[in-house]
C-alpha cells in the first residue's frame, strides 16, 4: 500500500495553547484510521491543519507524495481531501441536491452531466435521495450529518476526514450511519475518523491514533491501543495502579 497522507513534525499553537505538538503519522491508501482523545486534545485542529483552514507554525503535510503545506483549502479539496464537520454546516438556503452538486462540480471538477450523476450516486449511497429537493435547512440532525457525508463524497475524495459524525445520534441512527461508512470504506476511500463513540469507531477502523495535548500518545492496532497503559491513564481516566 502506498502512502496517501503524511504529517511530519506538525506544530501549531495559539499563544500558550498548543493544539499540535510535532505530530507525526502517515496514512496508507485504503486504510481506515480512528482518532480519539479527550476534549481539547487537538483532534479538530488536526483536521483544520490537513484541510488548510489552519496554517501550521512548523512541519509539513504531504498528500499523494506532494507537499501541500502551503496549498489553499480549495486546492486541497480539488486534489482529493474532503471533510465533514462536527456541527453540520449545509448551505441552508439551497436544496440538498444543490449542496451536493456544488461539491461535485467544484470539488471534483466534473463537467455538468457527470457532476449530476456523481451527486445522485452520492445521495443514494448515504440514503438522502428522497430528500434531494428539500432545502438543506429543513433537514433533521441525522440527515444533516448525512448531507455532510454526501457532500464530502461528491467531491470524489481519495481521503475522507470525518469529524464526530456519530455524535448526538441515537443508537439506531448511529448504527445506520456506521453501515453507510462501511460501504464507503469498501469502495477504497481512505478514511480518517475522529470520534468519541469508540464502539462506532471500532466497527470500521483498523488502526487507532490517540491524541492528548496535541501529541500522538498511541498509534496502532485498535484493541492493543485501547489496552495500553498510556491510553488507560490519559484518556479513559483510570488510575495507573487500578
Amino acid at each position, binding site marked *: 500500500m502506498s502512502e496517501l497522507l503524511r504529517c511530519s513534525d506538525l506544530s501549531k499553537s495559539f499563544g500558550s495553547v498548543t493544539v499540535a505538538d510535532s505530530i507525526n503519522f502517515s496514512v496508507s491508501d485504503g486504510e481506515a484510521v480512528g482518532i480519539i482523545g479527550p476534549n481539547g486534545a487537538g483532534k479538530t485542529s488536526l483536521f483544520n491543519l490537513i*484541510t488548510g*483552514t489552519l496554517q501550521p507554525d512548523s512541519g509539513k503535510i504531504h498528500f499523494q507524495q506532494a507537499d501541500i503545506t502551503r496549498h*489553499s*483549502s*480549495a486546492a486541497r*479539496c*480539488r486534489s482529493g481531501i*474532503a*471533510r465533514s*464537520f462536527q456541527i453540520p*454546516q449545509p*448551505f*441552508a*438556503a*439551497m436544496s440538498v441536491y*444543490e*449542496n451536493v*452538486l*456544488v*461539491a461535485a*462540480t*467544484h*470539488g*471534483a*471538477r466534473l463537467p*455538468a452531466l457527470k*457532476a449530476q450523476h456523481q451527486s445522485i450516486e452520492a445521495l443514494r449511497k448515504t440514503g438522502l435521495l428522497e430528500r434531494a429537493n428539500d*432545502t438543506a*435547512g429543513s433537514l433533521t440532525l441525522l440527515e444533516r450529518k448525512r448531507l455532510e457525508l454526501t*457532500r464530502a463524497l461528491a*467531491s470524489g475524495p481519495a481521503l475522507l476526514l470525518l469529524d464526530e459524525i456519530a455524535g448526538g445520534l441515537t443508537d439506531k441512527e448511529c448504527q445506520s450511519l456506521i453501515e453507510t461508512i462501511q460501504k464507503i470504506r469498501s469502495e477504497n476511500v481512505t478514511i480518517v475518523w475522529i470520534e468519541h463513540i469508540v464502539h462506532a469507531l471500532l466497527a470500521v477502523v483498523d488502526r487507532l491514533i490517540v491524541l492528548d495535548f496535541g501529541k500522538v500518545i498511541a498509534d496502532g492496532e485498535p484493541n492493543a491501543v485501547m489496552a495500553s497503559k498510556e491510553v488507560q491513564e490519559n484518556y479513559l481516566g483510570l488510575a495507573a495502579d487500578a
Partner: protein
Amino acid sequence: MVWVNAIIQGILIGGLYALFAAGLSLIFGIMRLVNIAHGDLIVVAAFIGLVVTSMLDLHPLASLIVVIPIMALLGYALQYCLLNQTMGNDILPPLLVTFGLSVILQNGLLEAFSADPQKLNAGVLETASLSMGSLNIGVLPLLMFIVALAVIAGLQWIFYYTALGRAFRATSDNAEIAQLMGLNKKHIFSMAMALSLAVVAIAGIFLGTRTSFDPAAGPARLIFGFEAVIIGGLGNLWGTLIGGIILGVAQGIGAQINPGWQQLAGHIAFLLVLAVRPTGLFPRVSH
C-alpha cells in the same frame, strides 16, 4: 391622458433604473459589498462606448459587443487585484475603497474627456416612436425596458440554474465551507463583479444614448440604483425591477405636476417605502 402617458413613460424609464440597480444588487447579495463607485462605473462604460463608437464608427448598441467584455474584464481585475484584499467580516473597508475609487474615476474621466457633456448618437432610434391611439411610445425607452427584463431574467437564470450561480449562492451562504468544497472564493467574487460590470456596460450605453452624460454624472445614477434596490427589497432581482419602475413612475408623475419636481417625487416615493417597509416591498424570503 397626460397622466397615463406619464405613468407609461415612468414604467419604461424604470427599466433603465433597474439596469442601474441590478449590478449593485447582485454584488451586494453575493458578497455584501456596497459599491459606491457603481454609478461612476456606469459613466465609465458610457465613455468607453463613446470611444468605441467614434473609433470603430459603430452604432451605440452594436458597441455593446466590445464594451461588455471590456467592462467584465475590468470588473474581474478590479475585484481580484483590489477589492478582494479588503474583503472580510467588516463591510466598511471595501465600502471606503470603492468610495475612493469613485473619486479617482470621476477625476480620471475629467482629465481624459474634460467636463463637456457627451452623448452617444443612436440616429433615428432616438426619435422613433410607436403610435398607440393618442399615446406615443418611444422605441428607445421600450427597447431599454425589454432589455432590462431580459437582463434580469438572465441573471435569475444564472443564479438559480447554472453551476456559477450555485457557486455564487454557496459562497454567499458560507464562504469558509464553500472553500472546502473546492470553490476559490477570490475567483467567485471576481466573477460576480465581472457579471455586475457586464450589466453596468449595458446600463452605461443606454444612459449615453438616452441623455447626455459627463464625468460627474455617476453619483446620481448610484442614488437611483440604490433607491431601486431598497424599494424592491435587498437580494431580490425582480423586486429591483419593480423598485426601478416605482421610482420611474413617481418621477414621471412628479414631472407632470411640476417639471422641477421630477427627482424630488422619486426621492419622496423612496422615503415613503423606507418609512412603511424598511426591508423593501419584496425582501428575499429564506425558503
